[in-house]
Every structure is written in structure tokens, then in C-alpha cells.
């Protein structure tokens, strides 16, 4: 069978409710969000023929395929690097569809990351996160020193950047306040109806002094999110307005790793996001000014600034001024994380912010960008990114 290059598109998105205790298995969450994505697209789950998730997702492909009645799975893969994997799932789905390897790729991430285990707490004797494939191989060099949580690793990564540019914790508060304002208007968000003020941010407890307060950190959440990727041609015949995957890529520069990322040359930049930006802008022929919205991985607020700078939305060190002047707001230059992000909506490992990008292009967000037509959306998870576009 001859293969030919095919454009890929997102045909369906699905999610469970986002909670702190789902009351059911991670596999059930995966099955529910997968079914929701298929129904959204109008694709029979039996016809899924590709499956992609994160290396650290606990559900097995076969078990999920058994729930969905998948007839013949032609392609499976998993992406390393924890949350950095998020946008790489779209990248790989695009590549598989482009190459003609499969037609209906299901991307999923489902977890009981609050009720069953907690990323934000000290490890409970579980060595899982220090193992290969998680992209976090140097965590074991941190643990004997009391850096045992993602917030501690993230703060240590952000410290040099914040020192160099005089970014204060109060500066970070503008990101939290904006995202919580979005969440307050999003019924799916855990913090629906609960906006915060800068003073709330400043009075929240220190998690990592003097860099991160509680309200600088993503949530811990239970829930699942799924995306159905198919060819642009097929997507045009399906239920929803297709969202074209115009470009997607990954970049892991030398000596860069996920979160315990202290060994590359310049700790005041995010080289992986710079690498993604370079390839993504070259691949699409677009520039930062062509984006009408962005979904940016926000495990911790400083990393939003580092990504805004890496993608060229502002100059190095100017991220704090960009967000302070309303850069992320609906009427600002780059409405960002309009679902409330991982701090305001839920922490489904970045996946929930990516499908907000799909909603913005469809015109169905609760915080819809209306000042301009959403033609292009950037999704970034640091080591990977994609440009989604109106078809």
C-alpha cells in the first residue's frame, strides 16, 4: 500500500468532570473521556486504530481498547517526560496520520492524581518518578537535599531567572489572578465562581520561599481528557468543525531535562521551548503575532513567563511586564489559558488546556476570544508544542 502525506486535524475532544476524588478507576476515567471524544467527533470507538498517552499514565492500552471495543489497533506509543509530553501527543498523532499509519488516533490522559496519589507531596516510598522514561532522571540528585516535590524542583529551576530579571513573587500573582478569573467563568473548572485578588495570592502560604506561593502552583486533580486526531479530509466529513494541526514539534536540547533541569548552559531561559518555537515558526511560516490565543503549560507560574519569552511574545525578562499589563487577558495581545489553566481549571497534565485551544478555534469556550477571529492557537508544554488552526 502506497503511503502519502496527509494533513491531520483534531476531530473530537472529550473530558470527564474535574474533581478531587473521582470515585472510580483511572481506567474508567480514560474510557469515559475517550468515549466523549469519539462521540464529539462522531467516530465509532470501534474504529480507533491508534492510541497515544504519557509513559506515566497507569492505564494499559489493551485494557482501554477492551472498554472501547477497538477492533484493530495499528499504532501505539507513549511519550516520556511527564507533563512535557502533553503537546508531543498531538505531534505524534499528527505524524502517524500524516504518514498514513492510522486513521483515528485516540490521545488520552486520565488520572486520580488527588485521591489516589499526590504529585505535590513527598514521595511515599514510590520510586516511579525517578525511573527512565519520565525525562526526570536527575531527580535522584535532589531528593537527599530536601527537594522532593515538583514545586521544589520547579522553584530551583526558576530561581536564577527570577533573580536575574528581578521577577518578584508579586509579579507572578498577575498570572494566577488572570487564570482564576478565567476559571471563575468556566463551569468545568474546579475554581468555578471563585476568582482571587492579588492580595489573596500574596497572602497564600509559601510553598517554596521566596519564589512560589500556594497560588503559583497547579492543582492536584482527578479526571481525564481525550483528543481524537484524524486526517483533515476525514474530519471535514465528521460532526465538528475540524481543527487543523498546522504544525507540531518537540525539542530536547543537549543537557536539558524535565523539571530537574539545572545542567544546561543558561538557567535564565527555557532552551526546550526556544527549540520548539524555532521549529514551529519555521514549520508553519507564522510568527507570535499570528496567534490569537495560547495554551501554555503552567505547572508553576514562572514557567508561563519563560515560555512567553521563548516563543517570542515578549523579550527575555519582559514576561512579567507582559502579564502585568494584561497580556494574557481576553482583550490583551495573547489571551492565555482561558480555561483557567492548570491552576484554575484542573491539572490533567496539560491536556485540559490544549483542548481549550480547540474550543477557542471552534468558538465554544466559556471565555471565548471575540475581539478577533481565532485563526491560530499555540499550545505549548515546554518540550513540545503545536499550532492549531481554523480549517
Amino acid at each position: 500500500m502506497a503511503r502519502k502525506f496527509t494533513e491531520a486535524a483534531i476531530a473530537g475532544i472529550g473530558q470527564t468532570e474535574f474533581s478531587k476524588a473521582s470515585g472510580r478507576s483511572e481506567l474508567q476515567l480514560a474510557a469515559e473521556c475517550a468515549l466523549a471524544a469519539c462521540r464529539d467527533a462522531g467516530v465509532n470507538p470501534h474504529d480507533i486504530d491508534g492510541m497515544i498517552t504519557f509513559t506515566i499514565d497507569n492505564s494499559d492500552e489493551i485494557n482501554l481498547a477492551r472498554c472501547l471495543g477497538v477492533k484493530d489497533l495499528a499504532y501505539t506509543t507513549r511519550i516520556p517526560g511527564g507533563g512535557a509530553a502533553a503537546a508531543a501527543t498531538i505531534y505524534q498523532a499528527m505524524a502517524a496520520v500524516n504518514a498514513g499509519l492510522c486513521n483515528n488516533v485516540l490521545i488520552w490522559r486520565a488520572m486520580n492524581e488527588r485521591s489516589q496519589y499526590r504529585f505535590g507531596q513527598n514521595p511515599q516510598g514510590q520510586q516511579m518518578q525517578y525511573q527512565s522514561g519520565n525525562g526526570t532522571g536527575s531527580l535522584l540528585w535532589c531528593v537527599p537535599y530536601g527537594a522532593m516535590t515538583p514545586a521544589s524542583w520547579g522553584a530551583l529551576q526558576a530561581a536564577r531567572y527570577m533573580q536575574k530579571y528581578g521577577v518578584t513573587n508579586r509579579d507572578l500573582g498577575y498570572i494566577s489572578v488572570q487564570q482564576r478569573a478565567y476559571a471563575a467563568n468556566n463551569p468545568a473548572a474546579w475554581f468555578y465562581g471563585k476568582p482571587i485578588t492579588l492580595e489573596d495570592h500574596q497572602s497564600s502560604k509559601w510553598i517554596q520561599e521566596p519564589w512560589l506561593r500556594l497560588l503559583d502552583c497547579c492543582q492536584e486533580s482527578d479526571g481525564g481528557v481525550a483528543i481524537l486526531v484524524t486526517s483533515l479530509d476525514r474530519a471535514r466529513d465528521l460532526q465538528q468543525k475540524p481543527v487543523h494541526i498546522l504544525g507540531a514539534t518537540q525539542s530536547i536540547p543537549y543537557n536539558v531535562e524535565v523539571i530537574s533541569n539545572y545542567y544546561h548552559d543558561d538557567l535564565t531561559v527555557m532552551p526546550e521551548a526556544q527549540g520548539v518555537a524555532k521549529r514551529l515558526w519555521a514549520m508553519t511560516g507564522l510568527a507570535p503575532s499570528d496567534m490569537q490565543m495560547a495554551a501554555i503549560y503552567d505547572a508553576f507560574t514562572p514557567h508561563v513567563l519563560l515560555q512567553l519569552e521563548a516563543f517570542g511574545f515578549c523579550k527575555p525578562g519582559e514576561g512579567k511586564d507582559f502579564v502585568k499589563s494584561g497580556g494574557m487577558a481576553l482583550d490583551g495581545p495573547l489571551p492565555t489559558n482561558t480555561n483557567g489553566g492548570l491552576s484554575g481549571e484542573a491539572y490533567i497534565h496539560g491536556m485540559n488546556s490544549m483542548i481549550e485551544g480547540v474550543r477557542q478555534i471552534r468558538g465554544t469556550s466559556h471565555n471565548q476570544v471575540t475581539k478577533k477571529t481565532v485563526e491560530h492557537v499555540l499550545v505549548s508544554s515546554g518540550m513540545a508544542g503545536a499550532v492549531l488552526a481554523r480549517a
Partner: protein
Amino acid sequence: MSTPTDSAPAAPAAPKPTRIPPIVTLDAKFFWDAADQEQFVGQKCGDCGLFTFPPRPMCPQCFSLNRQIVPLSGRGTVHGWTIPRHPAPFGFKEAPIVAVIQLEEGIRFVSNVVDCAHDEIRPDMPVVVTFEATMNNHKVPVFKPAGK
């Protein structure tokens, strides 16, 4: 053998270390073995002389498998730091200062800055290596302000 009644009163036992021991992998065993002996060592390529951290089986510059274990000066500067407040890190009575140390040899190492008040820590502050005990009779390199 003495009995409790006829022995001299014993000095109070030193408190047992509560810091968790290092997680030792095969490629980093040399490092932790040396630390147990209060030696701070690093990996240098036996052919081209490149220092690498974290340790690895192959030189990324000349692909040599010839690893040299060499003493490091133990001098460096504080490149960045954080004080973990919540959750309180396991094994520490008071919040430690966790720091990325920029070593003289051009590599970086995550450690603690000890003998330093939380409000005394400064970017690029010179520090020197010292050692602290962990559970299970191991030791780990930590750093204190130079001159203290």
C-alpha cells in the same frame, strides 16, 4: 561485659541522622562511595578531559568510555536556591536551603547550603563543600559559606 549498674554514665547518644540516604545508581556509585569517605569527586573524560555531570557512561564529546574519577575543588558559588516550606521535606527538622551550586570545574550540583541563615543567602555567594550524615550510615556533600 559490663552491666548497666557498674558502667560509667554514657554520654548522650548523638541524634540519629534523619536525612534520607542517596539513591545510588551504578553509574553514580563512585560518587556516593567517595562521599561516604568525605571526598567530593567528579567524572572527567579520560581521553578529552571533559567534566560531566550528572555522571554518565560515555563522554558526549569524544564518545570515550574511559571514565576518570577525579577530586573536585569543592569550591563553587550559589547559582540559585529555594527554601522548601510546604510540604516540609522529609528528614529535616528545619527547612533546608536547597541550592544549585556552580562548581569551579564548570559543572553544577544540587545540594544544601548549611551554616547559613535563610536571610543570609545571596546569588553567587562563594561556598565550600562539607559533609552531612544520612540514615543508613551514608554521607552526602553539602556546602557552607566560604570562610565560615
